[in-house]
């Protein structure tokens, strides 16, 4: 072979890794080489097998076949202990921290030096200080995890790995929960780690992150590694095509909005949760016919509560009108059924908990919320045959795959589950569509389709309120963007006249208007 004999061995090499769960082949003969001191991106749609591959690397699963080489050494990783010993550190998408422990306690957990805590804590405190200086990873060692921002919690995860002397760091969708500013900070830290010789594997579905920060990128599709390329030799369009297997439109294709009358009008909306905390602190917002208003913000700043109030399953005070009709915000008439009767359709943020009953079949799910309507009745019984026929037709038109109405909701992929919910809500021809995280966990191919459906609905003159933590999505889909922070709207911008930077500042609670 032409490749020169490398003076330094590869940081990580996988050869022919395969793993099946029953009949599902999650990983098929995967081989990958990661050079030390680089950021290696792994990109792929949901269910492409990225997480399975990483779980094998971290000892959660045992591969059916294949070999793992770390720094040139063939290594067996039967459990997490072995992975840690081999110098692999993992930052999971959902942090594995004990919320009511301090930072220090979390760091030493499982890596204590002896039976007593005091010496371990003292040593960790010292090490933490050196690490903080070396990598600009500042965290208060005595802070409780639950009091830290998500960005800082993530730093604790990175510190945990470094404390265990990891030199291969795997990050699984690390920016999903961060503000753009926090994400920038994270990548500065990763860059620093790379300069110090650490190897970083970045798993993400965000093309922008891959393009901006990685040296090499591997693409996975349906359990297989379809390509490994140098980042500088590729383009977002090229990667998307490799991921999906066909050409994909990355930009939402839409005409400028032609807004009409005010349909949804929210004034002075306040929500106090069960614990007595004010989640929404007086919001004013209008959505007109024929426009998409997007709510941007980091998760947990009151957007979910706003959707819940409008959807009828959260009490609130203030005023909400639809077509001039005042909606009750608590007590009788403040429920999902009444909201639907008022012309509001709702695609909830968590489709698996709020949008579908996972055990029920697609055709049953296709009428939930509307099942009491006369058209679905046959005397005192439900018109199951009719519902089934309509569901089959709906699934055909909304490109649900596979188009089998008898299949349980849990057996569809995330994107197809979402299509079932979107189809149900759009088909009722609502005046207002609430749609939360329309493409969370949805693959690129389906994203394109769902976005197109939302734009079509807008062009029919409907009012659409979109909530998404994906800033890119809000920017490309919405006509007007409102940013929520700490239960308030920090500002409204026309999507065509703003950018990620300006919105990112608003998402962090910084309003430029005072200066």
């Amino acid at each position, binding site marked *: 072979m032409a490749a020169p004999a490398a003076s330094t061995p590869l940081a990580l090499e996988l050869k022919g890794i395969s793993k099946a769960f029953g009949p599902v082949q999650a990983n098929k003969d995967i081989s990958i080489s990661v050079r030390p001191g680089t950021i290696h991106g792994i990109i792929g749609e949901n269910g492409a097998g990225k997480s399975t591959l990483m779980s094998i690397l971290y000892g959660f699963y045992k591969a059916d076949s294949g070999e793992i080489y770390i720094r040139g050494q063939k290594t067996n990783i039967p459990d997490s202990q072995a992975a*840690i010993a081999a110098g692999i550190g993992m930052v999971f998408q959902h942090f594995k921290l004990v919320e009511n422990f301090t930072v220090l306690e979390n760091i030493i957990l499982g890596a*204590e030096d002896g039976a007593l805590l005091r010496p371990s804590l003292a040593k960790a405190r010292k090490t933490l200080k050196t690490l903080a200086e070396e990598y600009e990873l500042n965290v208060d060692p005595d802070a409780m995890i639950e009091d830290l921002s998500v960005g800082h919690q993530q730093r604790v995860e990175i510190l945990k790995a470094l404390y265990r002397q990891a030199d291969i760091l795997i990050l699984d969708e690390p920016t999903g929960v961060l503000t753009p500013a926090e994400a920038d900070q994270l990548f500065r830290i990763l860059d620093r780690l790379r300069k110090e010789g650490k190897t970083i594997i970045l798993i993400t579905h965000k093309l922008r992150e891959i393009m901006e920060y990685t040296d090499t990128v591997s693409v996975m599709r349906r359990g297989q590694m379809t390509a490994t390329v140098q980042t500088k030799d590729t383009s977002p369009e090229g990667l998307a095509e490799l991921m999906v297997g066909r050409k994909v439109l990355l930009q939402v294709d839409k005409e400028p909005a032609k807004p009409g009358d005010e349909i949804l009008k929210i004034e002075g909306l306040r929500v106090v949760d069960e614990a007595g905390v004010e989640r929404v602190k007086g919001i004013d917002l209008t959505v007109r016919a024929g426009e998409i208003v997007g709510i941007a913000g980091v998760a947990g700043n009151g957007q979910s509560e706003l959707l819940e109030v409008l959807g009828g399953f959260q009490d609130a005070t203030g005023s909400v009108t639809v077509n001039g009709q005042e909606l009750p915000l608590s007590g009788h008439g403040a429920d999902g059924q009444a909201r639907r009767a008022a012309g509001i359709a709702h695609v909830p943020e968590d489709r698996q908990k709020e949008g579908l009953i996972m055990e029920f079949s697609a055709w049953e799910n296709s009428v939930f919320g509307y099942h009491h309507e006369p058209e679905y009745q046959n005397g005192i019984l439900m018109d199951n045959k009719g519902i089934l026929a309509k569901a089959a037709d709906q699934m055909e038109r909304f490109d649900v795959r596979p188009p089998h109405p008898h299949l349980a909701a849990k057996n569809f992929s995330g994107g197809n589950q979402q299509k079932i919910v979107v189809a149900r809500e759009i088909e009722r021809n609502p005046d207002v569509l609430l749609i939360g995280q329309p493409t969370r966990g949805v693959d690129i191919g389906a994203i394109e389709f769902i976005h197109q459906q939302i734009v079509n609905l807008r062009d029919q003159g409907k009012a659409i309120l979109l909530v998404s933590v994906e800033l890119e999505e809000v920017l490309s889909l919405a006509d007007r963007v409102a940013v929520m922070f700490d239960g308030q709207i920090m500002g409204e911008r026309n999507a065509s006249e703003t950018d990620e930077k300006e919105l990112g500042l608003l998402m962090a609670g910084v309003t430029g208007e005072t200066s």
Partner: protein
Amino acid sequence: MDFLTLLQVLDSSVRLAVPLLLACLAGLYSERAGIFDIGLEGKMLAAAFAAGAFAAVSGSVWVGLLAGIGASMILSLLHGVASITFRGNQLISGVAINMLAAGMTVLIAQDWFQQGGRTPSLLTEGRLNPINLPFADMFESIPLFGPTYSELVSGHSLIVYVAFAFVPLTWWILYRTRFGLRLRAVGENPASVDTAGVSVIRLRFTAVLICGALCGVAGAYLATGLQAGFIKDMTAGRGFIALAALIFAKWRPWYALWACLLFGLLQALAVRFQSIELAGIVIPVQLMEALPFILTVVILAGFVGRAIPPRAGGEPYVKER
């Protein structure tokens, strides 16, 4: 109430609090590790029977104590296998253990001893005998301190002192040792322990077995310390009261001590004062005896502040992808 009566009431509070305290600490280990245990009652009962039976047969209280601990640990192993290994429902497993113990103890007692489901009365060697602390007699004459020392502090059986010593010991284990850190972590977020390369299963089994051992001591104390032999249903809901005390104590060892002493005091008052006249109204003895249970209901209904249980409590741990 004169001083001596007060001392006597407090003295019996201490003795009645001991089984509660041991069971409460037992539950603390298990629940801090994320395994809910409503089978404390059944484990105590099984231990009381085993202790009573083996002490009667062997004539040695220590054999009885070991048998009690053994019986209780077998049941906790059952709970562990059901709820940790097979990820079953922890409440159902606990209920099953309570029912199993209630039936089996009487059945075996009848089969072995033919005394109507009880074990033979224990003689001195078969019972836990009081230990007189040094100087108890010497200090007797000193006013206030003397009687307090000899009545309240001295003259209890070894298990009483052991039980109280377990409070600071448990605190120390929980907050100052590696085992304690991991125990608390596995009850809050087992995934954090698992990803740190520590076995969740081993930790939880250890906790459940410690729980079994302590319940065993509690049950043995009932049959050989408080009374002289096992009788049917002799735990009389103490396992559930201990559970209430644990919630009341917010799963903390020192609070557990005070909670159990409070329940002990209520029981002691009911024993001591069969009926109390307050402002011309006679409070019937039944009400006095019901007090600990009424308090239990009040606590479990959540009237006494908000108690936040360990976050992963009751949830079997399944590795996620």
